[in-house]
């Protein structure tokens, strides 16, 4: 299915789906923020507002059987890959109906059935396993691809380099998606990397690079399709360098003392992937509001669902340590 579209470009209908997906992520995360501020949500929460195009573009290009590893900023990837908002919201509330049954939380969303091998709260922590999953696919001759999401900050940690090296050396079907939002928490790229074009870090292993503008979901999707196909066809892993913007704080509640507020506002006005797609498609206010209402309802329902969910029993904590 995806392949045919890749040739003739995406249908408007499909792009409208993408818009709706991005909107769902946006509204979901805004709701998370609201509920956190209301004191209802425990844990550390990181939203990906501004980066929805990456999640939707990549995840929509993945196929059944593909797997991925996410990061501390995982709601978008997880929603975009089809996990129901109810399951994610329930997880954030620590309920058994959650996608990790209350054991994981926002930084550890899992949905193995949909290929989500886990969000990781250790920067770079999930990359080696993606190389390993891809190795398993290769050894077994399965036409599956393993995808790793990670940020610009993660390109400074050893596991990143080791994982890319192994993947390229062994020519495994993996796609490494760098969500380059130019910040690692409060640390701007200029303070964590001596180079501006982080795709050079893939050159160090001879890995093929594909670039995309993360604020253009259509482009992300197109490039992701090529990347996945390349990997799936046994041509080796791909480093997908996606420039994007974190239009909010690092974590919910971050006052962003370190950030120029004027620049941030400008980014919010000019680089919001939802606004950009909406304008590109010429979606009317009415149509947009309809979609918005629809996703808002989904999101509101997810909160209802989560709150009505089952708290684990304290002793449930003793389960699932060993298989």
């Amino acid at each position, binding site marked *: 299915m995806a392949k045919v579209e890749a040739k003739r470009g995406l249908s408007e209908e499909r792009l409208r789906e993408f818009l709706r997906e991005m909107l769902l992520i946006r509204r979901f995360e805004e709701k998370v923020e609201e509920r956190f501020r209301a004191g209802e949500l425990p844990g550390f929460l990181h939203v990906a507002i501004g980066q929805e195009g990456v999640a939707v573009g990549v995840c929509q290009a993945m196929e059944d059987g593909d797997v991925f590893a996410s990061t501390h900023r995982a709601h978008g990837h997880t929603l975009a890959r089809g996990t129901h908002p109810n399951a994610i919201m329930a997880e954030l509330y620590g309920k058994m109906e959650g996608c990790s049954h209350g054991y*994981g939380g926002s930084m550890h969303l899992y949905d193995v059935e949909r290929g989500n091998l886990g969000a990781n709260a250790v920067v770079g922590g999930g990359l080696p396993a993606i190389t390993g999953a891809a190795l398993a696919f290769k050894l077994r001759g399965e036409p599956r691809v393993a995808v790793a999401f990670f940020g610009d900050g993660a390109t400074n*940690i050893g596991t990143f380099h080791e994982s890319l090296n192994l993947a390229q050396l062994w020519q495994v079907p993996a796609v490494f998606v760098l969500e380059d939002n130019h910040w690692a928490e409060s*640390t701007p790229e200029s*303070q*964590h990397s001596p180079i501006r074009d982080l795709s050079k870090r893939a050159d160090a292993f001879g890995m093929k690079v594909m670039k995309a503008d993360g604020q253009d979901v259509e482009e992300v999707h197109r490039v992701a399709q090529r990347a996945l196909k390349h990997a799936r066809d046994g041509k080796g892993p791909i480093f997908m360098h996606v420039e994007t913007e974190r239009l909010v704080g690092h974590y919910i509640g971050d006052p962003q003392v370190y950030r120029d507020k004027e620049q941030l506002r400008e980014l919010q006005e000019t680089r919001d992937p939802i606004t950009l797609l909406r304008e590109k498609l010429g979606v009317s206010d009415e149509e947009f509001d309809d979609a918005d209402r629809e996703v808002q309802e989904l999101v509101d329902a997810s909160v209802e669902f989560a709150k009505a969910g089952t708290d684990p029993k304290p002793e449930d904590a003793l389960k699932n*340590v060993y298989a």
Partner: protein
Amino acid sequence: MRELSYREAVRDALSQAMRQDDDIFVMGEDIAEMGGSMGVTAGMLDEFGPDRIRNTPISESAIVGAGIGAAMQGMRPVVEVMYEDFLTVSMEQIVNQAAKHRYMSGGQLKVPLTIRTQGGAGWSPGAQHAQQVEAWFVHVPGLKVVFASTPTDVRGLLWSAIYDDNPVIFFEHRTLYGLKEEVPEELEPIPIGQGRVHREGSDVTVVATGRLLHEALKAAEQAKSEGISVEVWDPRTLQPLDVDGLVASVKKTNRVVVAHEAVTRMGFGAEIAAVVGEQAFDWLDAPVERVGAKFVPLPFAPVMEEYVVPHAADVLEAVKRTVARDA
């Protein structure tokens, strides 16, 4: 006397040391503009500038290792590892390098490095942001290990750690940063290797670290109302261990509970139990009771997290169990 929070006490020790000695600098992730993920170094960038309040990339191996290298040149770097869970990333540098350069060189080198880190459960940081791993480092010759539980202690101990000529792994507990206390006007260094009796008692000694010190004090208060006199003792430095202080208390009370937030199995309490057995076997009227986290990773759901890590009630129960035993 003035009042300082635990957070402010850490900052005060760092700042005072840095004012006095240009060879001291701090490096870590997001410690500059943001003041660290726990706000400990807030404001210090303004005073000391970016060379000495040095933001780093996410490279826990290299930043610990860079600290080692600067320390070998005679500087006294303080490296902040944001969560102690990430000590796992720098484990090689800590264990094989920092701890061993002096020994392997036959005494030619010193590594006066302090690694500050923090962790702990509470309001669900989850399995990769809430571990307590201090026990590992107690097993590593060449390292010193500190775990500070009050503003006064954290200030005086951090000072000593910075000026110690050996690598010190300095543990803070996340839930304590807001804790306030009157502290001496002048910073009083606290020697590494000296425990502290927080409360005298005669029936049982509770050895407790970090957050559990405070839980132990609560438990002691409750025990008192039930007629049990609890001595509460904080080793404060786990390596070297104040064996004399420990044994003195045990010989007085003849009963011991040891409490920490780390999982019980192979936790620091095991070493306490072993040492007490070795040094005070004949004084012991009951088995050493260990209070620690259950043997599971830290779960997310608050109700499970709460269940996994120990609280005052667990300490109290252990106290009662031990005094209930015949001598």
